[in-house]
C-alpha cells in the first residue's frame, strides 16, 4: 500500500476521516460529501487543508461550486470493475476545471493506473505490497493511444497528421 504521486511514493499529509464520527483535531482531513454538507462551517473554521472523498455514485458536479475549498478530491473505486470514477475524474478536471490533486482510492490496481492517469487522476492509493514497484512495472506499457483526454497527450491520429 502507499500513495504514489509523480511516480514515487509520497507521504500523505491527509487523514481520511470520511468514515469517522469524531474528526481528529489539528490535521488535514479527507471528509465525505455528507460530512461536508452537514459540518461545512466547522470544517472551514479549522483552518486546515481539506480533501473530499466521493463515492462512485456521487458525481463531482454536486460540489461544483465548492471545489475551491478542497486541495484533494479522492474518487473511490469500490471494486476495480466499477468504472464510474473514470468519468467523474474527467468531468472534475475537464469540465469543472479542477486543478488540485485527484486521488484514486479503493480497489486501485496496477493494471488500471494508465487509464486512471489519462482520465486526470494524479495520485494513486495503490493496492500492492510495493506501490512504487507496481507503478514502475506498468509505466512503460503504453506509448500510443487512440483517444484524446484532458491530459493533453496527442492521439495516434494527431501524430499521424502532424508530419
Amino acid at each position: 500500500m502507499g500513495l504514489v504521486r509523480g511516480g514515487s511514493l509520497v507521504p500523505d499529509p491527509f487523514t481520511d476521516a470520511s468514515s469517522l464520527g469524531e474528526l481528529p483535531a489539528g490535521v488535514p482531513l479527507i471528509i465525505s460529501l455528507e460530512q461536508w454538507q452537514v459540518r461545512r462551517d466547522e470544517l472551514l473554521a479549522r483552518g486546515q487543508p481539506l480533501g473530499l472523498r466521493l463515492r462512485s455514485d456521487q458525481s463531482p458536479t454536486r460540489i461544483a461550486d465548492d471545489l475551491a475549498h478542497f486541495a484533494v478530491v479522492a474518487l473511490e473505486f469500490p471494486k476495480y470493475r466499477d468504472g464510474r470514477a473514470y468519468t467523474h475524474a474527467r468531468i472534475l478536471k475537464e469540465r469543472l476545471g479542477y486543478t488540485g490533486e485527484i486521488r484514486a482510492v479503493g480497489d486501485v490496481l496496477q493494471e488500471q493506473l494508465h487509464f486512471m492517469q489519462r482520465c486526470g487522476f494524479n495520485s494513486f492509493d495503490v493496492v500492492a505490497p510495493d506501490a512504487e514497484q507496481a507503478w514502475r512495472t506498468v509505466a512503460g506499457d503504453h506509448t500510443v493511444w487512440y483517444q484524446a483526454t484532458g491530459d493533453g497527450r496527442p492521439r495516434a491520429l494527431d501524430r499521424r497528421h502532424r508530419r
Partner: protein
Amino acid sequence: MYRYDEFDHTLVAERIATFRRQVQRRLSGDLTEDQFKPLRLMNGLYLQLHAYMLRVNIPYGCLSARQLRQLAYIARRYDRNFGHFTTRQNIQYNWIRLDETPDVLAALAEVEMNAMQSSGNCVRNITADQYAGRARDEVEDPRPWCELIRQWSILHPEFSYLPRKFKIAVSGAPVDRAAVKFHDVGLYLRRNADGVVGFEVIAGGGQGRLPYVGHTIRDWLPKEDLLSYLEAILRIYNLGGRRDNPQKARIKVQVNALGPDEFRRLVDEEWAQIRRSALLAVPRAEIERIAAYFADPAWEVLADDPVAVTRQRGVDPGFDDWYRANVVAHRTPGYAIVNLSLKAPGIAPGDLTADQMDKVADLADRFSIGELRVSHRQNLVFPDVRQGDLPALWQELRALSLATPNIGQLTDIIACPGLDFCSLANARAIPVAQDLSRHFGDAAVLQDVGELTINISGCMNACGHHHVGNIGILGVEKNGQEFYQLTLGGSSGEDASLGDRLGRSISAADVPPAIDAIVARYRALRLADERFLDTYRRVGIEPFKEAVYGARAREVA
C-alpha cells in the same frame, strides 16, 4: 481494407507485451485466477468447459486472404485444426493453451489482427453488413466509420470498465443484414430530407435473457458528430447503467427503465457539453486517410449476365440452385457477391477446418481480389467475383463442401457452441443444427420454402440469436435433461421483432418433426410467394401451435 500504420502496430505490440507479462505472472502464481480473469478477458481469452477459448476480432467482418491463411496456421499450430466463426464477426479457437496465448496474439499481429476487447465489459468488435461497399441498396459504405469507431473504442481510458459489454453494429443499407436493432448501439447510414448522409442512431437493443428491439434515439446525426454522440451515450451508460446485477447491467435495461425519451434527453444534455470539444474532433484528413483504404478495387469494365452463366444455368440444376440462393447482386456491372455456406449438412454451423481456410484463401485470391467477408449468420462472402467466373468458382466451392445452396434458408442455421463447448450452456445446440441440416437436405424443398431463418441457442444468453430467428430454438434443462423451446416470428432485419413462444418445450428428437409440421403448415397457408415471416404475421401463432401440438394445443401451451 484498412492497413495498420506504425501507430496501430505499436499499440497492438505493446498490448501483447503487457499480456505476456501478465500470463507469466499467472503461470508463476503471482496472480490468482481471480485476479487474472479480467486481464485475460480484455485480451479475448475465456476459460471454457474443457480448455481456454480465444476469440479473435474480424473487424466489421473484413478479412484478407493473407489473414485467413494466418488463421489457418494458428488453427494448425495452436489449436485442433479448426476455427469457429461466430455471430459477431469473430473467429473462436476452442483449444488454446494459456502459455501459448501471447504467441498466438503475436501471430495475429503479424497480419494486423488482434483479440483486444473481444470479451470483457467494454466496447466489443464493431460489426457491419457483410456486403458493405458492394451492395446495390447501400446509401454509403459503413466501413470507414466502423474503423473510426474501432480506433476510438480500443483501450478507451474512460470506457474500459463499463457496467457490461457493449456492442455496436453499423449498416449502410436500408435492408438490415447486420441485426442493427439488436445492438447496444446500432447505426444506419441514412439520407436526411436535404439528401445529406448521416446516421440514424438506435440504442438499447439486445438479446439475452431480456430481449429488446432498440429505440431510435436520434433520427439523423451529422457524420462529423459521430464520436461525440457515441461518447455521450457511453458516458450516460457508464454513470447510470446498473452495476448491482449483471443480468440487468446492459444499456437496454437502462434505456427501457428510463424510457427512450428520458434516455435521449440525458444523452442530448451530455452531448451539448462535449459536442464541440476539440478532444473529439476528427480532422477531415483522418477521415480521408481511413476512407482511402476502402476505395473501390480496380474492377474490370464488364457487362452483366455473361454467356458463361446463362449457358450453365440452363443445363445444371445444381448450379441454378446455388446461383439463386447464394449469389447476390453487386453494385458494379459484371460482378457478383458470392456467399460461401458454412452450413453443409451435418456440419457444426460456422466451423471451418484449417485446410478449408487455406483453400478458401487461395480461391479468394483467384476469384475475389484477395478479400472476403464474414457474416453474422456465420457464413463467408466473396465480395468481388466476376460473373463469368461463377461456374468455375461453384465447382471449386462444391469440392470444399462450401456450396450448399441455402443462404437465408431453412438450413442456414445460426447456432451457438452450446453444451459441447460452453460453460454457460444448458443444452447442446450444434447437434440440433446438424440434425436439421441433414433432415432438410433436399435443395428443391429448401427452395420452395424460401426465406426462413432458424436460430438455435443453448441457453438464455441467446448467443445463437433464437429470439430473432423466424423459428427460434432455445435449449433448456429440466431435471438433468435437455429440452427445446420453440419461438416463431422473430426477425433481426429492419422489420425487427422478437419471436413468440409456441408452447411447451420438446425433446431433441422431436425438433425435426416439429419443424416439419411448422413448415408444412406454412406451405399450406401462404399466399403466392409470401415469406414464412409474413404468413406468420398474417395468420398468427394458433395454426402453428395446432400443427406442432395437435388438437390439445390450447391446453398444453
